[in-house]
Protein backbone atom coordinates (compact mmCIF):
# COMPACT_ATOMS: atom_id res chain seq x y z
CA UNK A 1 0.00 0.00 0.00
CA UNK A 2 2.68 2.43 1.06
CA UNK A 3 4.79 1.50 -1.91
CA UNK A 4 1.89 2.33 -4.19
CA UNK A 5 1.59 5.72 -2.58
CA UNK A 6 5.28 6.21 -3.15
CA UNK A 7 4.68 5.80 -6.85
CA UNK A 8 1.69 8.11 -6.93
CA UNK A 9 3.44 10.92 -5.13
CA UNK A 10 6.26 11.51 -7.64
CA UNK A 11 3.68 11.52 -10.41
CA UNK A 12 1.94 14.36 -8.70
CA UNK A 13 5.19 16.18 -8.07
CA UNK A 14 6.04 15.98 -11.76
CA UNK A 15 2.56 17.24 -12.40
CA UNK A 16 3.19 20.17 -10.09
CA UNK A 17 6.46 20.97 -11.80
CA UNK A 18 5.08 20.90 -15.29
CA UNK A 19 2.37 23.28 -14.30
CA UNK A 20 3.37 26.35 -16.01
CA UNK A 21 -0.22 27.28 -16.02
CA UNK A 22 -3.85 26.80 -16.65
CA UNK A 23 -4.73 30.04 -15.05
CA UNK A 24 -5.87 32.03 -17.98
CA UNK A 25 -6.63 28.91 -19.91
CA UNK A 26 -10.20 29.83 -20.46
CA UNK A 27 -9.35 33.30 -21.59
CA UNK A 28 -11.42 33.72 -24.75
CA UNK A 29 -9.08 36.47 -25.97
CA UNK A 30 -6.18 34.10 -26.16
CA UNK A 31 -7.06 30.50 -26.39
CA UNK A 32 -10.58 29.41 -25.68
CA UNK A 33 -11.95 27.05 -28.26
CA UNK A 34 -15.57 26.67 -27.29
CA UNK A 35 -17.89 27.83 -29.97
CA UNK A 36 -20.76 27.69 -27.59
CA UNK A 37 -24.11 28.42 -28.99
CA UNK A 38 -26.12 30.56 -26.65
CA UNK A 39 -28.17 28.26 -24.51
CA UNK A 40 -31.40 29.95 -25.28
CA UNK A 41 -33.42 26.98 -24.13
CA UNK A 42 -32.16 26.90 -20.58
CA UNK A 43 -33.36 29.75 -18.45
CA UNK A 44 -32.95 29.83 -14.69
CA UNK A 45 -35.63 31.49 -12.56
CA UNK A 46 -35.32 35.22 -12.22
CA UNK A 47 -34.10 35.07 -8.62
CA UNK A 48 -31.16 32.85 -9.58
CA UNK A 49 -30.24 35.18 -12.40
CA UNK A 50 -30.55 38.18 -10.11
CA UNK A 51 -28.29 36.43 -7.61
CA UNK A 52 -25.69 35.69 -10.28
CA UNK A 53 -26.00 39.28 -11.46
CA UNK A 54 -25.39 40.50 -7.92
CA UNK A 55 -22.30 38.32 -7.58
CA UNK A 56 -21.06 39.62 -10.92
CA UNK A 57 -21.63 43.23 -9.89
CA UNK A 58 -20.05 42.64 -6.50
CA UNK A 59 -16.93 41.27 -8.17
CA UNK A 60 -16.90 44.20 -10.57
CA UNK A 61 -17.00 46.67 -7.67
CA UNK A 62 -14.40 44.76 -5.66
CA UNK A 63 -12.17 44.67 -8.71
CA UNK A 64 -12.44 48.44 -9.19
CA UNK A 65 -11.78 49.20 -5.55
CA UNK A 66 -8.85 46.82 -5.38
CA UNK A 67 -7.14 48.51 -8.30
CA UNK A 68 -7.65 52.00 -6.90
CA UNK A 69 -6.37 50.92 -3.47
CA UNK A 70 -3.38 49.28 -5.13
CA UNK A 71 -2.54 52.57 -6.75
CA UNK A 72 -2.91 54.39 -3.46
CA UNK A 73 -0.43 52.03 -1.82
CA UNK A 74 1.93 52.54 -4.69
CA UNK A 75 1.86 56.32 -4.59
CA UNK A 76 1.90 56.84 -0.83
CA UNK A 77 2.64 54.36 1.92
CA UNK A 78 -0.81 54.32 3.41
CA UNK A 79 -1.39 51.65 6.09
CA UNK A 80 -5.13 52.19 6.04
CA UNK A 81 -5.27 51.55 2.31
CA UNK A 82 -3.20 48.40 2.75
CA UNK A 83 -5.53 47.12 5.46
CA UNK A 84 -8.59 47.90 3.36
CA UNK A 85 -7.03 46.15 0.40
CA UNK A 86 -6.41 42.98 2.40
CA UNK A 87 -10.00 43.00 3.66
CA UNK A 88 -11.32 43.51 0.13
CA UNK A 89 -9.17 40.77 -1.33
CA UNK A 90 -10.36 38.37 1.35
CA UNK A 91 -13.97 39.22 0.49
CA UNK A 92 -13.12 38.82 -3.18
CA UNK A 93 -11.80 35.33 -2.44
CA UNK A 94 -15.04 34.37 -0.66
CA UNK A 95 -17.22 35.62 -3.50
CA UNK A 96 -14.92 34.33 -6.23
CA UNK A 97 -15.09 30.76 -4.96
CA UNK A 98 -18.88 30.91 -4.85
CA UNK A 99 -18.95 30.60 -8.61
CA UNK A 100 -18.43 27.28 -10.33
CA UNK A 101 -14.99 25.80 -10.18
CA UNK A 102 -12.44 25.83 -7.41
CA UNK A 103 -13.13 22.24 -6.49
CA UNK A 104 -16.44 22.42 -4.70
CA UNK A 105 -18.04 19.65 -6.74
CA UNK A 106 -15.19 17.18 -6.40
CA UNK A 107 -14.53 17.81 -2.72
CA UNK A 108 -18.23 17.80 -1.84
CA UNK A 109 -18.80 14.54 -3.71
CA UNK A 110 -15.72 13.03 -2.11
CA UNK A 111 -17.28 13.52 1.30
CA UNK A 112 -20.46 11.88 0.08
CA UNK A 113 -18.53 8.68 -0.52
CA UNK A 114 -17.09 8.22 2.94
CA UNK A 115 -17.24 8.86 6.63
CA UNK A 116 -15.61 12.15 7.57
CA UNK A 117 -15.60 14.85 10.19
CA UNK A 118 -16.12 18.58 9.87
CA UNK A 119 -12.43 18.93 10.56
CA UNK A 120 -11.63 16.87 7.45
CA UNK A 121 -13.86 19.17 5.45
CA UNK A 122 -12.09 22.26 6.69
CA UNK A 123 -8.70 20.74 5.96
CA UNK A 124 -9.60 19.74 2.41
CA UNK A 125 -11.20 23.12 1.66
CA UNK A 126 -8.21 25.01 3.01
CA UNK A 127 -5.58 22.89 1.29
CA UNK A 128 -7.33 23.17 -2.07
CA UNK A 129 -7.43 26.95 -1.72
CA UNK A 130 -3.80 27.05 -0.61
CA UNK A 131 -2.55 24.90 -3.50
CA UNK A 132 -4.70 26.96 -5.87
CA UNK A 133 -2.81 30.07 -4.72
CA UNK A 134 0.65 28.49 -4.45
CA UNK A 135 0.25 27.21 -7.97
CA UNK A 136 -0.75 30.67 -9.24
CA UNK A 137 2.08 32.43 -7.42
CA UNK A 138 4.79 30.00 -8.53
CA UNK A 139 3.68 29.96 -12.13
CA UNK A 140 3.51 33.73 -12.37
CA UNK A 141 6.83 34.31 -10.63
CA UNK A 142 8.63 31.67 -12.68
CA UNK A 143 7.25 33.01 -15.94
CA UNK A 144 7.97 36.56 -14.88
CA UNK A 145 11.59 35.99 -14.02
CA UNK A 146 12.28 33.72 -16.95
CA UNK A 147 10.32 35.40 -19.67
CA UNK A 148 9.92 38.92 -18.34
CA UNK A 149 7.13 39.40 -20.82
CA UNK A 150 4.25 37.71 -22.47
CA UNK A 151 2.98 35.99 -19.35
CA UNK A 152 -0.63 36.00 -20.44
CA UNK A 153 0.21 34.49 -23.80
CA UNK A 154 2.70 31.89 -22.61
CA UNK A 155 0.27 30.66 -19.99
CA UNK A 156 -2.12 29.80 -22.79
CA UNK A 157 0.34 27.39 -24.30
CA UNK A 158 0.59 25.33 -21.15
CA UNK A 159 -2.98 25.60 -20.02
CA UNK A 160 -4.31 22.65 -21.97
CA UNK A 161 -1.75 20.23 -20.62
CA UNK A 162 -2.44 21.16 -17.02
CA UNK A 163 -6.16 20.98 -17.43
CA UNK A 164 -5.95 17.56 -19.06
CA UNK A 165 -3.75 16.27 -16.24
CA UNK A 166 -5.98 17.68 -13.53
CA UNK A 167 -9.14 16.30 -15.17
CA UNK A 168 -7.45 12.92 -15.67
CA UNK A 169 -6.47 12.82 -12.02
CA UNK A 170 -10.05 13.63 -11.01
CA UNK A 171 -11.36 10.75 -13.14
CA UNK A 172 -8.84 8.37 -11.55
CA UNK A 173 -9.79 9.52 -8.07
CA UNK A 174 -13.46 8.99 -8.90
CA UNK A 175 -12.77 5.47 -10.16
CA UNK A 176 -10.72 4.73 -7.08
CA UNK A 177 -13.51 5.96 -4.79
CA UNK A 178 -15.99 3.87 -6.76
CA UNK A 179 -13.92 0.70 -6.51
CA UNK A 180 -13.20 1.36 -2.87
CA UNK A 181 -16.87 1.62 -2.04
CA UNK A 182 -17.77 -1.52 -3.99
CA UNK A 183 -15.00 -3.59 -2.43
CA UNK A 184 -15.39 -2.14 1.05
CA UNK A 185 -16.02 -4.71 3.75
CA UNK A 186 -16.38 -2.50 6.83
CA UNK A 187 -19.66 -0.62 7.24
CA UNK A 188 -19.43 3.15 6.93
CA UNK A 189 -19.72 3.99 10.60
CA UNK A 190 -16.76 1.84 11.51
CA UNK A 191 -14.69 2.99 8.57
CA UNK A 192 -11.54 4.85 9.53
CA UNK A 193 -11.41 8.58 8.93
CA UNK A 194 -9.62 9.78 5.79
CA UNK A 195 -5.90 10.15 6.17
CA UNK A 196 -4.27 13.50 5.66
CA UNK A 197 -2.26 12.07 2.79
CA UNK A 198 -5.27 11.05 0.74
CA UNK A 199 -6.86 14.42 1.42
CA UNK A 200 -3.69 16.05 0.15
CA UNK A 201 -3.77 14.03 -3.06
CA UNK A 202 -7.31 15.12 -3.81
CA UNK A 203 -6.49 18.73 -3.00
CA UNK A 204 -3.52 18.51 -5.33
CA UNK A 205 -5.52 17.10 -8.24
CA UNK A 206 -8.18 19.75 -7.88
CA UNK A 207 -6.19 22.76 -6.75
CA UNK A 208 -3.29 22.38 -9.15
CA UNK A 209 -5.00 24.52 -11.76
CA UNK A 210 -3.79 28.00 -10.79
CA UNK A 211 -6.51 30.37 -9.68
CA UNK A 212 -7.12 32.88 -12.50
CA UNK A 213 -8.28 35.50 -10.00
CA UNK A 214 -5.02 35.24 -8.07
CA UNK A 215 -3.04 35.39 -11.31
CA UNK A 216 -4.73 38.63 -12.31
CA UNK A 217 -4.07 40.16 -8.89
CA UNK A 218 -0.41 39.15 -9.14
CA UNK A 219 0.02 40.51 -12.64
CA UNK A 220 -1.62 43.73 -11.61
CA UNK A 221 0.64 44.18 -8.58
CA UNK A 222 3.61 43.48 -10.82
CA UNK A 223 2.58 46.24 -13.16
CA UNK A 224 2.35 48.50 -10.10
CA UNK A 225 5.76 47.30 -8.93
CA UNK A 226 4.41 45.93 -5.68
CA UNK A 227 5.10 42.23 -6.24
CA UNK A 228 5.55 41.57 -2.52
CA UNK A 229 2.06 42.82 -1.87
CA UNK A 230 0.80 40.78 -4.78
CA UNK A 231 2.07 37.50 -3.34
CA UNK A 232 0.63 38.35 0.06
CA UNK A 233 -2.67 39.29 -1.54
CA UNK A 234 -2.84 36.01 -3.45
CA UNK A 235 -2.63 34.16 -0.15
CA UNK A 236 -5.17 36.41 1.55
CA UNK A 237 -7.48 35.72 -1.36
CA UNK A 238 -6.95 31.99 -0.92
CA UNK A 239 -8.03 32.35 2.73
CA UNK A 240 -11.31 33.76 1.49
CA UNK A 241 -11.70 30.91 -0.98
CA UNK A 242 -10.79 28.40 1.75
CA UNK A 243 -13.76 29.69 3.73
CA UNK A 244 -16.22 29.10 0.89
CA UNK A 245 -14.90 25.68 -0.13
CA UNK A 246 -14.70 24.49 3.48
CA UNK A 247 -18.26 25.59 4.17
CA UNK A 248 -19.41 23.58 1.12
CA UNK A 249 -17.53 20.48 2.32
CA UNK A 250 -18.84 20.83 5.85
CA UNK A 251 -22.39 21.30 4.56
CA UNK A 252 -22.14 17.97 2.73
CA UNK A 253 -20.60 16.18 5.71
CA UNK A 254 -23.18 17.57 8.12
CA UNK A 255 -26.08 16.88 5.79
CA UNK A 256 -24.97 13.30 5.29
CA UNK A 257 -24.62 12.82 9.02
CA UNK A 258 -27.97 14.49 9.61
CA UNK A 259 -29.68 12.13 7.21
CA UNK A 260 -28.05 8.87 8.10
CA UNK A 261 -27.20 9.53 11.72
CA UNK A 262 -24.79 7.07 13.23
CA UNK A 263 -27.04 4.11 13.88
CA UNK A 264 -26.43 0.63 12.58
CA UNK A 265 -26.10 -0.02 8.93
CA UNK A 266 -28.98 -2.31 8.03
CA UNK A 267 -31.85 -2.73 5.61
CA UNK A 268 -33.18 0.36 3.87
CA UNK A 269 -30.73 2.58 5.64
CA UNK A 270 -27.86 0.56 4.37
CA UNK A 271 -29.13 0.60 0.79
CA UNK A 272 -29.74 4.35 0.93
CA UNK A 273 -26.30 5.01 2.34
CA UNK A 274 -24.72 2.79 -0.28
CA UNK A 275 -26.52 4.59 -3.10
CA UNK A 276 -25.50 7.99 -1.80
CA UNK A 277 -21.87 6.91 -1.51
CA UNK A 278 -21.84 5.38 -4.97
CA UNK A 279 -23.52 8.51 -6.35
CA UNK A 280 -20.72 10.63 -4.88
CA UNK A 281 -18.09 8.52 -6.65
CA UNK A 282 -20.04 8.56 -9.92
CA UNK A 283 -20.34 12.36 -9.77
CA UNK A 284 -16.57 12.66 -9.42
CA UNK A 285 -15.99 10.35 -12.40
CA UNK A 286 -18.56 12.11 -14.58
CA UNK A 287 -17.35 15.54 -13.60
CA UNK A 288 -13.74 14.59 -14.36
CA UNK A 289 -14.78 13.14 -17.72
CA UNK A 290 -16.72 16.28 -18.47
CA UNK A 291 -13.66 18.42 -17.70
CA UNK A 292 -11.46 16.12 -19.71
CA UNK A 293 -13.77 16.39 -22.70
CA UNK A 294 -13.67 20.16 -22.36
CA UNK A 295 -9.88 20.26 -22.10
CA UNK A 296 -8.89 17.88 -24.88
Amino acid sequence: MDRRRLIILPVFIVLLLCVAAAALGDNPFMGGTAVEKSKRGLNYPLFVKRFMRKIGLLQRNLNERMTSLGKEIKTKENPRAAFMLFALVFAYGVVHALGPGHGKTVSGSYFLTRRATVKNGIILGSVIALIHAVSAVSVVLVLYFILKKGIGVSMEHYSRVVKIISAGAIVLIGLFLFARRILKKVPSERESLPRDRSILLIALAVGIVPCPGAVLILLFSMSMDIIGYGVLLAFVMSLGMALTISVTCCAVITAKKGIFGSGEERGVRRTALFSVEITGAVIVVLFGTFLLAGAV
Partner: protein
Amino acid sequence: MKRFLLLLLLPFFLLTRGELKAHPHVFLDTRVTVVLDSEGVTGFWIEWEFDEMFSAMIIQDFDEDYDFSFSPAEIANIEKNAFSNLKNFHYFTYVSWKGGEYTGKKIRDFSASIRGDTLVYRFFVPCRIGIDDTGMVIKVWIYDDSYYCDVGFAEEEPAAFEGEKGYGIEAVIARDERITYYFGQVSPQVLRLSVRRNDG
Protein backbone atom coordinates in the same frame (compact mmCIF):
# COMPACT_ATOMS: atom_id res chain seq x y z
CA MET B 1 -39.11 14.67 7.73
CA LYS B 2 -36.10 16.78 8.62
CA ARG B 3 -33.84 14.14 7.18
CA PHE B 4 -35.86 14.03 4.03
CA LEU B 5 -35.50 17.79 3.61
CA LEU B 6 -31.77 17.51 4.10
CA LEU B 7 -31.68 14.81 1.45
CA LEU B 8 -33.36 17.22 -0.94
CA LEU B 9 -30.68 19.78 -0.20
CA LEU B 10 -27.77 17.51 -1.09
CA PRO B 11 -28.00 17.69 -4.87
CA PHE B 12 -28.12 21.44 -4.54
CA PHE B 13 -24.64 21.47 -3.09
CA LEU B 14 -23.31 19.01 -5.58
CA LEU B 15 -24.86 19.95 -8.86
CA THR B 16 -22.10 21.51 -10.79
CA ARG B 17 -23.27 24.94 -11.60
CA GLY B 18 -21.68 25.13 -14.98
CA GLU B 19 -18.24 24.05 -16.01
CA LEU B 20 -15.04 24.54 -14.15
CA LYS B 21 -14.69 27.63 -16.27
CA ALA B 22 -15.44 31.22 -16.10
CA HIS B 23 -17.43 33.35 -13.72
CA PRO B 24 -16.21 36.76 -14.52
CA HIS B 25 -12.52 37.43 -14.26
CA VAL B 26 -12.54 40.36 -16.59
CA PHE B 27 -14.94 43.27 -16.60
CA LEU B 28 -15.55 45.45 -19.58
CA ASP B 29 -17.75 48.41 -20.43
CA THR B 30 -18.94 48.55 -23.99
CA ARG B 31 -20.06 51.37 -26.27
CA VAL B 32 -21.74 51.00 -29.63
CA THR B 33 -21.70 53.50 -32.48
CA VAL B 34 -24.34 52.81 -35.10
CA VAL B 35 -23.19 53.80 -38.58
CA LEU B 36 -25.83 54.70 -41.17
CA ASP B 37 -25.91 55.81 -44.79
CA SER B 38 -28.76 56.60 -47.16
CA GLU B 39 -29.75 52.92 -47.44
CA GLY B 40 -29.80 52.15 -43.77
CA VAL B 41 -27.36 50.74 -41.24
CA THR B 42 -23.93 49.75 -42.56
CA GLY B 43 -22.53 48.40 -39.35
CA PHE B 44 -21.47 49.06 -35.78
CA TRP B 45 -18.33 50.36 -34.15
CA ILE B 46 -17.86 48.38 -30.97
CA GLU B 47 -15.66 49.73 -28.20
CA TRP B 48 -14.60 47.90 -25.06
CA GLU B 49 -13.02 49.54 -22.08
CA PHE B 50 -11.44 46.94 -19.80
CA ASP B 51 -10.95 46.87 -16.05
CA GLU B 52 -7.52 47.93 -14.86
CA MET B 53 -6.29 44.48 -13.89
CA PHE B 54 -6.84 42.95 -17.28
CA SER B 55 -5.57 46.19 -18.83
CA ALA B 56 -2.37 45.94 -16.81
CA MET B 57 -1.83 42.39 -18.01
CA ILE B 58 -2.26 43.20 -21.69
CA ILE B 59 -0.23 46.40 -21.47
CA GLN B 60 2.56 44.59 -19.67
CA ASP B 61 2.56 41.83 -22.26
CA PHE B 62 2.26 43.86 -25.43
CA ASP B 63 3.62 47.36 -24.87
CA GLU B 64 7.08 46.16 -25.77
CA ASP B 65 8.88 49.50 -25.68
CA TYR B 66 7.21 50.56 -22.42
CA ASP B 67 6.09 53.89 -23.87
CA PHE B 68 2.55 53.36 -22.61
CA SER B 69 1.02 53.52 -26.05
CA PHE B 70 0.63 50.94 -28.79
CA SER B 71 2.50 51.20 -32.07
CA PRO B 72 0.93 49.67 -35.20
CA ALA B 73 3.19 46.64 -34.78
CA GLU B 74 2.11 46.23 -31.16
CA ILE B 75 -1.53 46.55 -32.16
CA ALA B 76 -1.06 43.86 -34.81
CA ASN B 77 0.48 41.65 -32.16
CA ILE B 78 -2.45 42.25 -29.80
CA GLU B 79 -4.93 41.50 -32.55
CA LYS B 80 -3.19 38.25 -33.34
CA ASN B 81 -2.63 37.06 -29.78
CA ALA B 82 -5.29 38.66 -27.65
CA PHE B 83 -8.22 39.35 -29.91
CA SER B 84 -8.55 37.24 -33.06
CA ASN B 85 -9.44 34.15 -31.06
CA LEU B 86 -12.73 35.87 -30.26
CA LYS B 87 -13.95 34.69 -33.65
CA ASN B 88 -14.71 31.52 -31.71
CA PHE B 89 -16.85 33.59 -29.39
CA HIS B 90 -18.86 35.53 -31.95
CA TYR B 91 -16.75 38.58 -31.02
CA PHE B 92 -19.19 38.81 -28.11
CA THR B 93 -21.44 40.67 -30.53
CA TYR B 94 -24.97 39.62 -31.47
CA VAL B 95 -27.25 41.68 -33.70
CA SER B 96 -30.69 40.80 -34.90
CA TRP B 97 -33.39 42.54 -36.90
CA LYS B 98 -36.47 41.56 -38.80
CA GLY B 99 -35.28 39.11 -41.40
CA GLY B 100 -31.68 38.64 -40.36
CA GLU B 101 -28.90 38.45 -37.86
CA TYR B 102 -25.17 39.08 -37.66
CA THR B 103 -23.34 35.80 -38.02
CA GLY B 104 -20.32 36.83 -35.98
CA LYS B 105 -17.94 35.85 -38.79
CA LYS B 106 -16.33 39.10 -39.79
CA ILE B 107 -15.02 42.25 -38.19
CA ARG B 108 -12.52 44.83 -39.45
CA ASP B 109 -10.37 47.81 -38.42
CA PHE B 110 -9.35 46.46 -35.04
CA SER B 111 -7.39 48.86 -32.90
CA ALA B 112 -6.16 48.91 -29.32
CA SER B 113 -5.25 51.93 -27.25
CA ILE B 114 -4.56 53.00 -23.69
CA ARG B 115 -6.89 55.53 -22.12
CA GLY B 116 -5.69 56.68 -18.71
CA ASP B 117 -4.82 53.32 -17.15
CA THR B 118 -7.27 51.28 -19.09
CA LEU B 119 -7.06 49.26 -22.24
CA VAL B 120 -9.51 50.03 -25.02
CA TYR B 121 -10.37 47.77 -27.96
CA ARG B 122 -12.29 49.09 -30.93
CA PHE B 123 -13.44 47.32 -34.06
CA PHE B 124 -16.06 47.55 -36.76
CA VAL B 125 -18.80 44.98 -37.27
CA PRO B 126 -19.99 45.24 -40.89
CA CYS B 127 -23.69 44.54 -40.94
CA ARG B 128 -25.95 45.81 -43.70
CA ILE B 129 -29.51 46.48 -42.57
CA GLY B 130 -31.79 48.23 -45.04
CA ILE B 131 -34.26 50.66 -43.53
CA ASP B 132 -37.46 51.16 -45.52
CA ASP B 133 -40.31 53.56 -44.88
CA THR B 134 -41.91 51.38 -42.25
CA GLY B 135 -38.83 51.56 -40.05
CA MET B 136 -36.93 48.82 -38.32
CA VAL B 137 -36.26 47.50 -34.83
CA ILE B 138 -32.68 46.38 -34.31
CA LYS B 139 -31.37 44.64 -31.22
CA VAL B 140 -27.74 44.54 -30.19
CA TRP B 141 -26.47 42.29 -27.41
CA ILE B 142 -22.84 42.24 -26.30
CA TYR B 143 -21.87 39.45 -23.97
CA ASP B 144 -19.32 36.71 -23.45
CA ASP B 145 -21.02 33.36 -23.71
CA SER B 146 -18.37 31.74 -21.50
CA TYR B 147 -18.81 34.47 -18.86
CA TYR B 148 -15.07 34.91 -18.57
CA CYS B 149 -15.91 38.57 -19.07
CA ASP B 150 -18.71 40.43 -17.45
CA VAL B 151 -19.91 42.87 -20.10
CA GLY B 152 -22.08 45.89 -19.44
CA PHE B 153 -23.02 48.94 -21.47
CA ALA B 154 -21.03 51.97 -20.33
CA GLU B 155 -22.92 54.35 -18.09
CA GLU B 156 -21.89 57.36 -20.11
CA GLU B 157 -22.79 57.47 -23.77
CA PRO B 158 -23.37 53.76 -24.31
CA ALA B 159 -24.75 54.41 -27.80
CA ALA B 160 -23.82 56.95 -30.46
CA PHE B 161 -24.65 57.45 -34.13
CA GLU B 162 -22.84 58.32 -37.33
CA GLY B 163 -24.58 59.46 -40.51
CA GLU B 164 -27.94 59.49 -38.74
CA LYS B 165 -29.18 62.57 -40.58
CA GLY B 166 -32.58 61.87 -42.08
CA TYR B 167 -33.39 59.20 -39.52
CA GLY B 168 -35.33 59.27 -36.29
CA ILE B 169 -33.73 56.88 -33.83
CA GLU B 170 -34.81 55.76 -30.39
CA ALA B 171 -32.31 53.83 -28.31
CA VAL B 172 -33.15 51.99 -25.09
CA ILE B 173 -30.93 49.76 -22.96
CA ALA B 174 -32.59 47.11 -20.82
CA ARG B 175 -31.86 43.69 -19.43
CA ASP B 176 -33.14 41.01 -21.76
CA GLU B 177 -34.40 38.22 -19.54
CA ARG B 178 -35.52 36.14 -22.52
CA ILE B 179 -31.96 35.49 -23.60
CA THR B 180 -29.68 33.59 -21.30
CA TYR B 181 -26.15 32.31 -21.46
CA TYR B 182 -23.70 30.55 -19.19
CA PHE B 183 -26.07 27.63 -18.66
CA GLY B 184 -29.10 29.81 -18.31
CA GLN B 185 -27.80 31.68 -15.32
CA VAL B 186 -27.08 35.09 -16.76
CA SER B 187 -29.04 37.41 -19.01
CA PRO B 188 -27.36 40.14 -21.04
CA GLN B 189 -28.34 43.73 -21.60
CA VAL B 190 -29.86 44.62 -24.92
CA LEU B 191 -29.57 47.83 -26.91
CA ARG B 192 -32.90 48.20 -28.65
CA LEU B 193 -32.91 50.61 -31.58
CA SER B 194 -36.04 51.81 -33.36
CA VAL B 195 -34.93 53.41 -36.60
CA ARG B 196 -37.27 55.15 -39.03
CA ARG B 197 -36.90 57.62 -41.85
CA ASN B 198 -37.79 61.20 -41.04
CA ASP B 199 -38.58 62.35 -44.57
CA GLY B 200 -41.12 59.60 -45.11
